[in-house]
């Protein structure tokens, strides 16, 4: 690990000022991705601004929206009664991610910003456009069974690994961001950037901007929702494909539908087209199949991950069928 200066932030403004002023500075929260990447020298910050003692750990319910401090841990949010009652898909996505130890450390803000598990990104000995722009992509001709089929480019096929980001994207959550020039709110639908020719740019945050809160709209009472994660092991493993979905079914019709996929995209993958198909339809196999087709529309297989396209479709059908069968 490279040496770094350590600063403990006393206020949000102090933290933002410290990082904004130094191009080599970055924030430290739970550290579960960051410290690991620093050990491998994939990250080499010259200054860590520790934000873990800032008062950003409260969860409040306000007018149909859950406002979550960005330093709330995954375990804390999963245990919150409003999440259990009104956002079951978020709770499931949280508890199906990582391990209990990691979930006690990892914060929600950090989870959204976690870096890919692409082994080539994490190995400074090989080429990676995300780590070193212009260097080339080792995954395209490498072992790419875990890699993305949606949102890829010739420059990068790395999968976004978050589970909870998929559930949050599905329900229309936003992040509240503080920068040197004030605060802004960014919907997750506009937060992530697909790699294109600049895979090192993963989201719309400017250097020094800090996620302070998440705003999560609650599902209406009576909504059915869930998170299905398909993986190689029963626990403590990243998704090969995952689906976050919520349906409101009334009088034999789907009145509202939310759908997003994980494990298959370079970013958490929202599918508005599938939501449109589902809306006002009868909840049957035909429309679920059409939604699944729409969800994987445009998917591109690499040498080792073509199975994810059909796996993703089947996961969508299974998740939606499971919700429809709930009484």
């Amino acid at each position, binding site marked *: *690990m*490279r*040496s*770094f*200066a*350590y*600063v*403990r*932030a*006393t206020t949000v403004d102090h933290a933002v000022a410290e990082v904004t002023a130094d191009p080599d500075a970055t924030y*430290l929260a739970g*550290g*579960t991705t960051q*410290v*690991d990447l*620093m*050990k491998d020298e994939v990250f080499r910050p*010259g200054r*860590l601004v*520790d934000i*873990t*003692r800032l008062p950003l750990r409260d969860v409040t319910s306000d007018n149909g929206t859950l406002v979550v401090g960005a330093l709330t841990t995954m*375990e804390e949010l999963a245990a919150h009664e409003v999440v259990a009652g009104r956002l079951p898909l978020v709770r499931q996505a949280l508890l199906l991610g*990582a*391990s*209990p*130890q*990691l979930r*006690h*450390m990892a914060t929600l803000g950090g989870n959204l910003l976690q870096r890919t598990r692409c082994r080539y990104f994490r190995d400074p000995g090989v080429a990676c456009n995300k780590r070193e722009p212009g260097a080339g992509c080792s995954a395209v001709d490498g072992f790419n069974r875990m890699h993305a089929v949606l949102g890829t480019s010739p420059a990068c096929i790395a999968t976004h690994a978050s589970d909870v980001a998929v559930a949050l994207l599905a329900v229309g959550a936003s992040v509240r961001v503080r920068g040197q020039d004030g605060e802004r709110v960014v919907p997750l639908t506009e937060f992530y950037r697909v790699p294109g020719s600049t895979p090192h740019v993963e989201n719309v945050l400017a250097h020094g901007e800090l996620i302070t809160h998440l705003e999560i709209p609650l599902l209406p009472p009576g909504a059915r929702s869930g998170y299905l994660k398909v993986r190689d092991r*029963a*626990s*403590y493993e990243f998704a090969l494909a995952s689906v976050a979905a919520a349906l409101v079914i009334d009088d034999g019709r789907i009145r509202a539908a939310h759908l997003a996929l994980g494990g298959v995209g370079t970013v958490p993958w929202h599918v508005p087209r599938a939501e449109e198909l589902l809306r006002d339809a009868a909840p049957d196999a035909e429309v679920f199949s059409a939604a699944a087709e729409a969800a994987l529309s445009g998917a591109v297989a690499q040498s080792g991950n073509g199975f994810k396209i059909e796996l993703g479709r089947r996961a969508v059908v299974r998740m939606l069928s499971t919700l429809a069968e709930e009484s």
Partner: protein
Amino acid sequence: MDGSAPQARVSPGPQARPVVRVPVVLRVNGTEHRIEVDTRTTLLDALRDSLKLTGTKKGCDQGQCGACTVHVDGKRVLSCLTLAASADGRAVRTIEGLEQNGTPHPLQESFVKHDGLQCGYCTSGQIMSAVALIEEGRAGSDDDIREFMSGNLCRCGAYPNIVAAIREVAGRGDDA
């Protein structure tokens, strides 16, 4: 708690960047230790190398195996991914802090009784995780124990006996 940052003392190091050392107060098993660490020092290395508390083990050092599990402010965490500087002032509990007046913790007894180990390298982490698991109320079934112990790997494969050891202390006897 004093929220101010520790005062850094900067000294030249072998790399292009100077080594930065910071004073840290580690409160481990009820004892306060005032030490100075390189900012890169993990809580795991501080426990083992500075405080000579070698019960906590370094397995993968990448947050994957769980051998380094300790409790910080009552929650089980991975000490290999926790910076010592960030743990400043927090209450840390390690495997050395489980015994009371020379009597092992019931889980320590149970791991011995059920042979919940072979080489023993993962055992401190398994037990620290299991103590938290029971406190979290997640030992209600063998499936729950397996799910919520998934962050602790055992390369010897002592899992059935680990589950049995936890089940007994969780108060469900031998019924699976």
